């Protein structure tokens, strides 16, 4: 084809994946036996768009596969067939496979042809059975379609009757015929029956028709592709040669097949208009920004943004430009009398800047439904597998969260939900015996709380079995034989690496990897996870995450002439040191008695090897930080402002520095380092009171 279509591939993939998501949720919403015709229509439209798109781009396998799906959906749509659980299951599998195929084509890794074949057989079988006992007329075109969709061993008979206006649309049959002849041996016979008398001839109209015999095992789509730009301007029929022997013979013998010019052939253009491209109707109105240059790159580099957000952004930039011109006008001849105006302008500028920052960050925000949407399917599949009855409810799915956070959140969430399904919810008979409803409930809930997003995974299942956890912990040597633990400490145990109470290891869970990974992932995102569990009543896992990874609420602190920012989330409180509460423990450093607790004191100036204002502990401030349930007091000289800081990476141009998680730029343009609280705590544990000298460290290691 003369047009380079590869530039549209990316759009096709994006839209197809989105469409598949729509299909999946649509299928899950289908009630067997009583399907909503509108949702079947939606399914059909999506399948049709994918088929159309893929045939336009020459992804034959996808086209053929979706074709079968589409045929089945068409049957459902026209009520020739009723929706059964089997059909829904089969279609769901087909959606999965289609996803697989699309990603296969996208990254060039191909797909599992066997699985595709099996699925297609299943679909075709359903088609066959659905037709049985119905009006026989519908089974006839079906057969042809099924045969059409595949390869014809011997070739294709193409009946091509352009409408009179074909030439005015800029199309020319000749290059198409030439293109066809490249695919295989082509016998051409021309149909001149529509030619008018010479005096009536319109030189700009097309009166000719062709009957073409294309020999060879050529996929149908390849043939169809050649006609795809003209199919709305012609009557076209593509039939396998072996499927219609009499016509084939007629064509082969080179005779002109007489054709009624009036023949309307309403069913002729059977593979309907793929040239219209993927239909956007099923998809929310979005515009696409930051189209990636390398289409094979990961998904992370592209983001779809609601058009409203872009409009808001443009508005703000407009405001900013106005403010800027106002300020530069004032600046041109600045007099003392204009100071007030200048001040107003600066206030406006500050407001504009803040708004701009907020809306730019808003671009990265996506509703959490992107992550939640996969769970109905997961719950459905797993409850079948586990023979449990489970209802999933979701609320707050419109809560927005940073795209990066969202992506990294998916795996932990899946793990938590799987855990709830597998360990939490009991089998129906057990539930009945406990006097609970047979159907277990799992609830996903998301909401904003201050600067954080809170996600809850709650179930009304068995809850954590404390006795079992304790026993397992003792057996695995995580805790001592007679060690007694508070309730929340017991719950904490399930986050231990390798810890499992499952009696049997299934392919769903029980290997003991997981909860520790969940917690680590969430901690990496700067968040935390808590458990609330009541034995017999269920458990709730609460995840708290920062809204975005790019910005952090920080407490600026000063030591000597150095300014550091401590993430506010890790700070419990800050206090003036009372010297009588400080005690020294030989070889273990200093301890501070805070109410009923004892905290180790970390003298940050020692750890960082800088010069403080004063080493006398009562003249400074102790910032109590908490990490992983462990508290510590960081000794600093002075607390400065609290500030939202934009996190900059040190690693881009330098390397990771222990105890430092990044850097940020302060209002005066200087750089302040952001403390990595767990890192600092760790540093202080192995505190070596000399400067950075690798040989010294080595010596210490050897000595240890």
């Amino acid at each position, binding site marked *: 084809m003369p047009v380079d279509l590869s530039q549209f591939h990316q759009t096709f993939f994006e839209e197809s994946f989105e469409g598949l998501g729509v299909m999946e949720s649509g299928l899950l919403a289908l009630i067997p036996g009583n399907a909503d015709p509108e949702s079947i229509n939606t399914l059909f439209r999506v399948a049709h768009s994918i088929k159309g798109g893929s045939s336009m781009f020459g992804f034959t396998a996808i086209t053929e596969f979706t074709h079968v799906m589409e045929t089945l959906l068409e049957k459902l749509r026209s009520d020739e067939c009723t929706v059964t659980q089997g059909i829904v299951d089969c279609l769901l599998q087909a959606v999965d496979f289609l996803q697989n195929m699309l990603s296969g084509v996208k990254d060039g890794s191909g797909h599992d042809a066997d699985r595709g074949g099996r699925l297609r057989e299943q679909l075709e079988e359903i088609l066959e059975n659905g037709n049985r006992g119905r009006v026989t007329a519908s089974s006839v075109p079906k057969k042809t379609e099924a045969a059409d969709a595949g390869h014809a061993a011997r070739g294709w008979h193409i009946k091509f009757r352009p409408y009179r206006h074909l030439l005015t649309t800029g199309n020319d049959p000749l290059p198409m015929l030439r293109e066809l002849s490249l695919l295989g041996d082509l016998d051409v016979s021309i149909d001149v029956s529509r030619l008018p008398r010479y005096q009536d001839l319109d030189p700009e109209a097309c009166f000719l028709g062709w009957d073409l015999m294309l020999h060879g095992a050529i996929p149908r789509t390849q043939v169809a592709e050649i006609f795809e730009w003209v199919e709305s301007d012609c009557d076209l029929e593509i039939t396998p040669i072996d499927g219609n022997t009499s016509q084939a013979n007629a064509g082969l013998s080179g005779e002109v097949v007489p054709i009624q010019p009036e023949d309307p052939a309403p069913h002729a253009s059977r593979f309907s208009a793929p040239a219209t491209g993927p239909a956007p109707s099923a998809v929310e109105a979005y515009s696409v920004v930051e189209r990636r240059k390398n289409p094979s790159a990961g998904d992370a580099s592209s983001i779809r943004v609601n058009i409203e957000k872009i409009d808001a952004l443009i508005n703000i930039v407009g405001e900013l430009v106005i403010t800027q011109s106002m300020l530069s006008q004032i600046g041109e001849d600045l007099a003392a009398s204009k100071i007030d105006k200048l001040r107003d302008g600066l206030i406006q500028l500050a407001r504009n800047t803040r708004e701009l920052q907020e809306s730019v960050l808003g671009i990265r925000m996506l509703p959490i439904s992107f992550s939640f949407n996969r769970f109905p399917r997961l719950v459905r599949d797993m409850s079948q597998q586990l023979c449990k009855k489970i209802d999933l409810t979701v609320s707050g799915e419109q809560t927005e969260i940073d795209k990066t956070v969202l992506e990294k959140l998916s795996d932990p969430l899946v793990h938590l939900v799987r855990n709830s399904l597998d360990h939490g919810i009991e089998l129906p008979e057990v539930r009945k015996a406990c006097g609970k409803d047979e159907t277990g409930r799992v609830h996903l809930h998301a909401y904003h709380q201050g600067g954080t997003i809170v996600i809850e995974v709650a179930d009304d299942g068995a809850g954590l079995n404390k006795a079992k956890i304790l026993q397992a912990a003792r057996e695995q040597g995580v805790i001592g034989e007679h060690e007694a633990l508070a309730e929340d400490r017991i719950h904490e145990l399930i986050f231990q690496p390798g810890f499992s109470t499952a009696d049997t290891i299934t392919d769903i869970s029980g290997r003991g990897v997981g909860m520790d990974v969940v917690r680590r992932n969430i901690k990496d995102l700067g968040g935390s996870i808590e458990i609330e569990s009541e034995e017999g009543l269920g458990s709730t896992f609460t995840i708290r995450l920062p809204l975005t990874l790019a910005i952090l609420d920080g407490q600026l602190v000063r030591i000597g002439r*150095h300014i550091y920012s401590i993430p506010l989330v890790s700070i419990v409180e800050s206090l003036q040191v009372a010297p009588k509460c400080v005690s020294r423990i030989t070889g273990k450093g200093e301890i501070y008695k805070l109410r009923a607790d004892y905290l180790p004191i970390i003298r940050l100036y020692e*750890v*960082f*090897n*800088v010069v403080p204002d004063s080493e006398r502990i009562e003249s400074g401030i102790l910032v109590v930080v908490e990490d992983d349930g462990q508290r510590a007091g960081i000794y600093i000289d002075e607390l400065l402002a609290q500030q939202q800081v934009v996190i*900059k*990476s*040190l690693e*881009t*141009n*330098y*390397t*990771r*520095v*222990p*105890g*430092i998680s990044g*850097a940020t*730029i302060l209002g005066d*343009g*200087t*750089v*302040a*380092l952001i403390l990595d609280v767990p890192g600092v705590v*760790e*540093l202080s*544990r*192995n505190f*070596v009171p000399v*400067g*950075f000298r*690798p040989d010294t*460290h*080595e010596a*210490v*290691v050897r000595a*240890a």
Partner: protein
Amino acid sequence: MNLGQQLNETTQPMPTAAGQYLTFILAGTEYGVDILRVQEIKGWDTATEIPNTPEYIRGIINLRGTIVPIVDLRRRFHMDAVAYGNTAVVVVLKVKRAGGERTMGFVVDAVSDVYNVTVDQIKAAPDFGTSVSTEFVKGLATVGDKMVILLEIDQLVDTGVATAEKALPIKADLKRRGDT
């Protein structure tokens, strides 16, 4: 591109050494770096110190929103540290490392000149046992009656940052031992 042609025609062992060099002064000696690696030259201001890093890492600065580390070349070459005067500048260079290009700043006493250096002007560095270790030296160039030390900038930082990175596993080691 006269220089390019010369490069192609000659079969000297160090063909890439020829080209334009930006030179700067460090304790009275002139050093040159490949001008194509120079991103910009900016006045020396303060840098934010990073704890527990090699002494020659002066700290980090904000270069239009990017965090750029500053290497003190005097300290890197184990020269006497001096208080920088108002001629002191930061030469911001693109440094190639395994894993990509980095932007780093180098504080020097003053910038000097830009020279066209041809291949026959460059001599291999003898092991002259001065304060400059020869591993950072690409060669010596004679320009007029002056001698310029051409620096291998990637080497310079590679060794430097590698040292800093090497420290991490040692610390991790230490920690593990401390825990058990």
